């Protein structure tokens, strides 16, 4: 399975629930398209929920970084929620923990956008 992305609105924050793999090919491009679609549609507070993402490769990480840049350049914010240990490790190895704001708890994450 590639990645399944569903969105829901919590106040003015758009939560993207991701499930599956964000890897080179379909997974990474689906994620890129979703972020662009949301930003173009005026959604500028994005929370990416990675709780059910089993696998991210360097291409997936690259798309997350590009998504972060795209949203930031449009005056928006992209934050991360519920990372698995493996994704946490990846962010540590790549030093991207210093770039992304990461939350364990959805309520706290939503509140942080206020």
């Amino acid at each position, binding site marked *: 399975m590639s990645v399944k992305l569903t969105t829901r609105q919590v106040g003015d924050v758009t939560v993207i629930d991701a499930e599956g793999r964000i890897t080179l090919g379909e997974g990474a491009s689906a994620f890129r398209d979703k972020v662009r679609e949301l930003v173009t549609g005026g959604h500028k507070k994005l929370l990416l929920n990675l709780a059910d993402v089993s696998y991210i490769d360097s291409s997936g990480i690259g798309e997350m*970084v590009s998504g972060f840049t795209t949203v930031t350049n449009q005056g928006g914010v992209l934050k991360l929620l519920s990372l698995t240990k493996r994704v946490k490790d*990846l962010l540590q190895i790549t030093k*991207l923990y210093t770039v992304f704001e990461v939350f364990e708890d959805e309520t706290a994450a939503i509140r942080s956008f206020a």
Partner: protein
Amino acid sequence: MARGQRAGRLILMAENEAAEARTEKVLDSTLESVDSAEEAVLRAAQQIGFDEDDMHKIGMSVRESMVNAVVHGNRYNARKKVWLSIAQTPQRLEVVIGDEGEGFNMDTLPDPLAEENLLRHSGRGLLLIQAFMDEFQIRLRNPKGTEVKMVKYLAKGG
């Protein structure tokens, strides 16, 4: 070297050779090859007895290296091939992946951990392989291309 010692060493070498199983594949420059290489390496890793965490690291390292070979090395060129070699012993897994690309100099690659490169879209694959595998070597192939060799050892008690 005494005769007995030499004989003992020969027997040891023969035992080591007997214990090593090697698989070699020639793959097309496609993303399907990335999946099939990962599957083949993970089968060997499972036989050796790596735990789930190491299996993940090995699988990801193979994917990253295969993507480099298919996408950046051979640039999806249908006439170019990727060579995969898997050698396994009860304690060690060695994977060699070679392409027919133009090759590159690691010293000239941007450091993905430098502050100014953190927001770059790509360039993290080799960093992840180095973090996940116990040994990592990269060299130019003759007449052209790049060859990556990576090794993972079964942890003691693993």
